[in-house]
């Protein structure tokens, strides 16, 4: 009887090579798994991969769509990256996105005739406020009572979505909308301006700017240092006078505010109308983006584009082969698994061996 043994041998220090290689290996493994999934679905595997992951990058029109899809992911994930670095687990970005969209939409819905450049600016600001406030709830509960922020922030996603559902079916429904659950359509200054003749709106720029700004925050400022210390050595941080409570509040306000901004940008950009469902799970996919981007706000830009490809590829594969568009979420989930597995290589060397099981092997069989 032989026994497969996997032993982890701690590296003397973190592997810099693996820190970069790990996400690449993870993407590679996801693609290989993609071949198997396509074969299982009865699609020629290589053609499937091409349509899924390469074709979205081959023409100008789809590159525009890529930027538009990537921008909410980048915006949310940049904030989450900082939050996770601080060891604060906000997983309710989807809810903060929803409330941000709600707050921002209040202007076109309630003050429909107001048209001025200030309209869209106030919408964006309200979006940030809404997301930040929704994020503040789990943060305050954590600080005041110690309630686990993972569970409370997640529960609030459902509450936010039901609130949106109620508004667009009830008080905020367009009275001339033939009873469809929709708000009035946004017009002119209630929408984000676009660049030239493209569909690329200013939200895309905001996303990149936000990520870059957080990159500077993390590397060049005391706050960034505080985040990193509180994440890796909270006791040391406490001795340095950093407050864990303040860090929880900061992380949630920041990541919630950005998720809220992403929400209103999605409605004032491509959406143009408030509906019961406003996001294909951007708030959850952004968690994967944050990890693929190494919890580094700048890395998140690249990772956001990569995950946006999976959304677009999902649509392409749906129309080309009739594969369910749900395949995209399978790829996204697999990718996160592979990243986490490969990240082991940063801290450990893996020693795989086949050896004879002996009585001393301690019950290995």
């Amino acid at each position, binding site marked *: 009887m032989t026994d497969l043994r996997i032993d982890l041998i701690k590296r003397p220090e973190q592997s810099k090579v693996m820190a970069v290689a790990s996400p690449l290996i993870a993407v590679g493994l996801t693609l290989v798994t993609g071949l198997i999934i396509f074969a299982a679905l009865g699609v020629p595997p290589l053609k499937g991969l091409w349509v899924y992951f390469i074709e979205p990058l081959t023409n100008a029109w789809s590159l525009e769509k890529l930027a538009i899809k990537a921008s909410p992911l980048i915006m949310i994930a940049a904030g989450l990256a900082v939050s996770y670095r601080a060891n604060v687990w906000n997983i309710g970005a989807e809810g903060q996105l929803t409330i941000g969209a709600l707050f921002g939409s209040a202007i076109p819905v309630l003050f429909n005739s107001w048209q001025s450049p200030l309209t869209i600016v106030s919408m964006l600001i309200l979006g940030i406020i809404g997301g930040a406030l929704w994020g503040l709830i789990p943060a305050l509960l954590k600080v005041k*009572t110690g309630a686990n922020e993972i*569970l*409370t922030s997640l*529960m609030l996603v459902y509450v936010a979505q039901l609130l949106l559902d109620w508004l667009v079916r009830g008080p905020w429904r367009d009275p001339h909308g033939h009873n469809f659950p929709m708000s009035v359509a946004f017009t002119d200054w209630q929408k984000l301006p676009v660049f030239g003749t493209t569909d690329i709106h200013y939200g895309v720029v905001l996303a990149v700017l936000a990520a870059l700004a957080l990159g500077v925050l993390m590397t060049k400022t005391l706050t960034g240092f505080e985040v990193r210390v509180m994440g890796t050595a909270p006791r040391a941080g406490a001795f340095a006078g950093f407050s864990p409570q303040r860090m929880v509040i900061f992380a949630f306000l920041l990541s919630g505010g950005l998720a809220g901004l992403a929400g209103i940008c999605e409605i004032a950009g491509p959406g143009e109308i408030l509906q019961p469902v406003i996001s294909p799970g951007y708030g959850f996919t952004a968690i994967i983006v944050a990890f693929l981007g190494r919890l580094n706000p700048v890395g998140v830009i690249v990772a956001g584009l990569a995950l946006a490809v999976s959304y677009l590829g999902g649509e392409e594969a749906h129309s080309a082969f009739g594969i369910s568009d749900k395949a995209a*979420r399978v790829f996204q989930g*697999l990718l996160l698994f592979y990243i986490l597995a490969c990240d082991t290589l940063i801290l450990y060397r893996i020693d795989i061996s086949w050896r004879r099981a002996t009585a001393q092997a301690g019950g290995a069989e």
Partner: protein
Amino acid sequence: MSPFVEVVLTIITASTPLLLAGVGELVTERSGVLNLGVEGMMVMGAVAGFGAAFVTGSPAIGVIAAILAGTMMAAIFAFLTLKLVSNQVATGLALTLLGLGLSGLIGDNFVGQPGVKLARLAIPGLSDLPIVGPIVFGEDPLVYLSIALTIIVSHVLFSTRAGLVIRAVGDSHASAHALGVSVVQVRTLSVLFGGACAGLAGGYLSLAYTPQWIENMTAGRGWIALALVVFASWRPMRVMVGAYLFGAVGVLGFVAQAVGLGVPAQFLSSLPYIVTVLALVVISKSTRARGSQAPACLGQPFVPDR
């Protein structure tokens, strides 16, 4: 059947998946592992249970498939967190995201198909008694199983050597290791047990609660089960109390809707989530004063040194 009996039966059916998933996760956490992937394991159990029962026509095979699906998901989690020592929080989230995606893909062809319902017990004479009959003697088999399971888990954890080992590993993995206990092995088994229970809970949803397949049909119940374990201070019998309370809250929302209280349906649907948050707040506040009841090594990675 009187409306009262109907409501009680519905509460029991709504609570059973929470109880099953909660008790499973409790054992996992007692061994020191935090598996946030309950929702993912549960939804895979739901789709596998529905699919297997739909293809074979046998709800029993559906139940077995649901257990297997949950266990397999848990095995992935165990391999990553225990063998490769990946971050438990992130890996649990990954498990949920993958489960929701994969179940959607697998279940695409099941949408709108008629389900196979797990039959309720019918004991001649007993099940026909008024009120007591349907409630005590007329449930489906999994209701009895979930209650028995909770009692067994409670007994094993606190009155047997195996339970002592599980708790030792969860409270101090270094000491357990020094005493010659294989921490990784104990944790792997505990995680697999949690997965089996979560899978069964999912199967219960698609075979007994609402015998059909709807995408994301777990609707956060996996997360509520996680909250339940905290709420119960990691004690099985309290999980049972909590599960029935939470189940009742959800059902009473629907009852209020049916009676016509004039409250928006969405508000009533959000009650279980709001109540979960409130329950977490109350319990966290009180444990803060008394000290945490959580297993001391919960969520901490363990790499055996050789």
